[in-house]
């Protein structure tokens, strides 16, 4: 459904993404893991149009999307969430989600409709008690939920989730895992997720891609990846 071929992205002398191929199946949850600085977020930025690749091509449903702007890519059905949450702080929760409904693929035109429509997604993410709370008064967990609700309100086909679990405590992680499972099972959205919390990766993903220094070093089911020698070497060192 979403694929990249021979992707290269350099920042000056640093090659952040080095000749990377990837493929994401429709309806699956694909995980993207790797040590810090391995190029995970860079890859997300390439897919969603925030960066342009120096080489290579990214295709979505067979159509090339490289060179398109983020808002155009969103309209094609690829949405992302941010590692560091980026709410619209002067707006309430409902208004935040309404912006996505107005300008996303739902492309509503009236504020009233958008606010009405946003309720569905706020409920889906379990934020209904905060509907009219200003975003600046939310806790981190709530902001992460808001980030997901806003992404869903754009009516995506593929959702790129960048570290949704960072900074959450174990019970909150369980809750978030459930939400992501429901996004796939109830809404049928394909998910590509960057994650450091291995419990979540093992629990959620059908397929995992491991990056190191911008190169793919392993790929497969979570168990395959976790037992793969190059991955163990990268994370733990040669001795193991």
């Amino acid at each position, binding site marked *: 459904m979403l694929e990249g071929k021979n992707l290269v992205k350099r920042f000056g002398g640093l090659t952040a993404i080095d000749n990377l191929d990837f493929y994401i199946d429709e309806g699956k949850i694909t995980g993207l893991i790797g040590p810090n600085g391995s190029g995970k977020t860079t890859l997300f930025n390439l897919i*969603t149009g*925030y960066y342009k690749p120096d080489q290579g091509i990214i295709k979505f449903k067979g159509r090339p999307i490289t060179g398109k*702007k*983020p*808002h155009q890519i*969103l*309209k094609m059905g690829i*949405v*992302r969430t*941010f590692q560091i949450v*980026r*709410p*619209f*702080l*002067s*707006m309430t929760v409902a*208004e935040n989600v*309404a*912006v*996505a409904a*107005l*300008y*996303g*693929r739902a492309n*509503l*035109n*009236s*504020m009233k409709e*958008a606010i009405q429509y946003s309720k569905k997604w706020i409920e889906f993410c379990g934020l209904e008690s905060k509907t009219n709370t200003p975003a600046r008064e939310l806790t981190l967990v709530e902001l992460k939920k808001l980030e997901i609700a*806003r992404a869903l309100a*754009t009516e995506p086909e593929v959702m790129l989730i960048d570290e949704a679990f960072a900074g959450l405590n174990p019970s909150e992680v369980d809750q978030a895992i459930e939400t992501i499972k429901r996004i796939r099972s109830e809404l049928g959205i394909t998910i590509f997720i960057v994650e450091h919390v291995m419990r979540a990766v093992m629990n959620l993903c059908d397929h995992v891609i491991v990056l190191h220094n911008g190169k793919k070093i392993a790929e497969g089911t979570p168990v395959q990846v976790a037992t793969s020698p190059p991955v163990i070497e990268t994370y733990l060192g040669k001795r193991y």
Partner: protein
Amino acid sequence: MEKSFKFFLIVTLLLGLITILPAPTFFFVALATAFLYAGYSESWNIVGGYAGYTSLGHGALFGLSAYFVALLLHHFGTSPLLTIPLGGLLCIIIAIIIGYPTMRLRGYYFALATLSLPIIFGAVVVSFPDITLGGRGVSNIYITEIPFELRPQIYYMIFLLYMAVCASVAYMVERSKFGMGLVAIRDDEVAAEACGINTTKLKVRAFIISGFLTGIAGGFYGTYLTYISPSTAFGILPSIIPVLMAILGGRNTWLGPIIGGIVLDLLRQYISYTFPGVLNTLIFGGILIIFTILFPEGAVGMIKKGNLVGILNKYKYRRIGHTQSR
């Protein structure tokens, strides 16, 4: 419709009806410029407030339109009634030309880039004295259709209407999909783009609306003063004044620039009549500083929050020596 907007429209209507009464002329003269500045400040607010792009160069558009009207009248005798709307259209074109490159910049960089515009425009005017009459300016700019003895009343009406139009535009923007997009851009441009907003298109559109309204103000202002020069048109004041008014009144709200514009302009006029000379600028500046400290979010923002009492208490406590956590 919101209550406060209905109230505003009624007050505007009543203010308009006053012209029938034999009110003293100074009443019209004093309020006319206050209305003009309130409307101008509101135009600025669409870019500087909702979209959060603090333009320090709106004076370039304001002065450009004033010069356009004045020069066409001077050289060809074209009636300002025709050229003022054209001045607005000219400002739309200029807004597009300067909007695309400058709105890629953010924060201070955008402010600095726009700050250079009136300086550039002023330099151009001085450099081509054959066309622009250079540094000595253009005089005798009149709308001959307006009878001389009714000038104060008619300009009062024009500027009142102008202010009402600007406020209505801002009111509609604030409640529209477009306005919601601008606020999203102000809050977080990267996230706005991730929600599907074509940020460039929206920002330039905001600049166009703002530029058109600014151009109308500039065109009328020249004929109101009857004289413009590079320093009155492209000096620092026409660029800074709407910013001050909007910020002190409360940017991001349609009502803020209206209140800020009227109050500050009347205050400025009062101080300059009461304290002649350099002293008035000093006092006016001092009052501005106090305002900014008391109302960091603007007067409207403070009233909305209901924090007026709280903030006064805070200052009281501070004076007595109590320390507060915030």
